[in-house]
C-alpha cells in the first residue's frame, strides 16, 4: 500500500486558523505542515475540538487559513479569487461524509454524474464516467438504484465514487465509517484504500484507530497542533514541535 507514491497533491505550509481576536481568539489550527501525495492516505485523529474538521475544511478550500499557505494540485489557493477557488475545488476535491449525503431523488449513477454535469461535461459523458466510477468501487450493478434502496455501505461506496469521478484526485473523508457497523466500515476502508492506491490522495478524519490504521500515516491534533505522527515516514522534528 505504500508503493507508487506520486507527487504532492495537497500541501499545507505553516497553516494557522484563528477565530476571533485578542482575548477571545480561538486557535483552531496552529502552524500545521502537511503534505499529501498521490497514492497516499493520511489519517487525522484527535479529540473533539482539536481542529480536525478545520483542517479538512482548509484542505478542501472551504475555509481559508489566517496565515500559511494551501497548495492544491499546484495552485496556491490564496492566489485565486473566490470563483477560481471554487472551480479548483470542484475539479480537484471530493468529499465523503459520515451520513453519505447522497441526493435521495437521484439514482446512484445520477448522484455520481451530477457534479460532473455541473462541471460542464455532457450528460452522456457524465453517465459514462459515473458508471466507471461505480465499477471502481464494485457496485456498477446498483447504478439505477436510489439511495433508500441501498445499504449504508453501498451508499458510502456511491459517495466515494462521486468524490473521485472525473479528474478529482483528492478525497476528503470526514468519519466515513461513523454510521456503519464494523464489518461494513472495514469494507468501505478497503474501497477507499484501493481508490487511493489507484491514483488518488486521501485525507481521512476518524476517531477510530482501527480505521486510521488503513492510512499510510496518522497525524494527531491536539488544540490545533500536530502533536504526533505515526506511520512510515516519521518526522522527528514534528514530534518535538509541540508548543503550548
Amino acid at each position: 500500500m505504500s508503493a507508487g507514491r506520486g507527487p504532492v497533491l495537497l500541501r499545507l505550509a505553516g497553516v494557522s486558523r484563528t477565530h476571533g481576536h485578542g482575548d477571545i481568539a480561538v486557535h483552531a489550527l496552529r502552524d500545521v505542515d502537511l503534505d499529501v501525495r498521490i497514492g497516499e492516505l493520511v489519517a487525522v485523529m484527535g479529540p473533539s475540538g482539536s481542529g480536525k474538521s478545520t483542517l479538512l475544511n482548509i484542505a478542501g478550500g472551504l475555509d481559508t487559513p489566517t496565515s500559511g499557505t494551501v497548495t492544491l494540485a499546484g495552485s496556491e489557493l490564496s492566489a485565486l479569487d473566490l470563483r477560481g477557488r471554487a472551480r479548483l475545488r470542484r475539479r480537484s476535491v471530493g468529499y465523503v461524509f459520515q451520513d453519505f449525503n447522497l441526493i435521495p431523488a437521484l439514482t446512484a449513477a445520477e448522484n455520481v454524474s451530477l457534479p460532473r454535469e455541473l462541471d460542464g461535461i455532457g450528460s452522456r459523458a457524465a453517465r459514462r464516467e459515473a458508471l466507471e466510477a461505480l465499477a471502481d468501487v464494485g457496485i456498477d450493478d446498483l447504478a439505477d438504484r436510489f439511495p433508500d434502496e441501498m445499504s449504508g455501505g453501498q451508499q458510502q461506496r456511491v459517495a466515494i465514487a462521486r468524490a473521485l469521478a472525473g479528474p478529482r484526485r483528492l478525497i476528503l473523508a470526514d468519519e466515513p465509517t461513523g454510521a456503519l457497523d464494523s464489518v461494513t466500515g472495514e469494507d468501505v476502508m478497503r474501497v477507499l484504500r484501493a481508490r487511493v492506491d489507484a491514483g488518488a490522495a486521501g485525507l481521512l478524519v476518524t476517531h477510530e484507530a482501527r480505521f486510521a490504521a488503513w492510512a499510510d500515516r496518522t497525524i494527531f491534533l491536539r488544540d490545533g497542533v500536530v502533536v504526533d505522527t505515526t506511520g512510515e515516514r516519521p518526522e522527528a522534528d514534528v514530534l518535538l514541535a509541540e508548543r503550548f
Partner: protein
Amino acid sequence: MSVRNGLLALLAEQPMHGYQLRQEFERRTGSTWPLNIGQVYTTLHRLVRDGLAEPVPAQGAGTEDDVERFRLTGAGAAEVAAWWAQPVHRGVPARDELAIKIALAVTAPMVDVTGVIRAQRTETLRSLHDYTRLKLEVPTREDLAWSLVLDSLVFAAEAEVRWLDHIEARIARAAHSHGASFFGAGAAAGAGADAEATDGAARTAPATQPPDKNAEASR
C-alpha cells in the same frame, strides 16, 4: 492453557502425531503463536497422564506409520466439548506490563507519564498499522481463520489506544486540578527537559500548563 485446549480441539478432529499437531495449530492460527515441538510433546504427555488422550495402538510392526499418533479418550472429548461450551475465563487479569508500567509511572516522582503514554501509543498504533497491512494482504474469504486472528490483534491494539487516550486525558485533568508537580514532568517537558528532570528541579516547575482556555471554549 490455550496450547492444551488447542491441541485437544485438534485431536478431536482426528488422531495426529506431534509434528502434525504443531503444523495444524500454526496453520489454523496464522502462525501468530508459534509452538516449539518440545512444548507440543510436553503437553501431549500431560494429556496422556491426565487421561484425556492416548497413543493410537500401532497397526502392525514394520509399517511406515512408526511415529506415535495420539487420539482423545472419552474424557478428552468431554473436555473439548466443555471448552467450546464455556466462555474463556477472564476472572483474573494476566499481568500486563503496560498497565503496571503506567501505574508505577503516575506514582513515581520523576517520570514523564504523558511521554510514556505517547511513546506507547505511537508503538501500539504502529503494530495496529502492521496488522491492518497484513489484513490487506489476506483476501478475507480465502483464509477466514487467519483473518479472524488478525482481527483479534487489531481490536486489542485499538482498545489499548483508546485506553491510552483515556488515561492521558484523565492525567491531564488530574494534573490541572491537583497541581502539575504531582505528576512529574508533563506534556510541556520537551526533549531538553528530560535531563533536567533528574535533578528534581523540573518537579517543582509547572509541568503541564493549564489548557488553553480559548481552545477549550471551542469544544
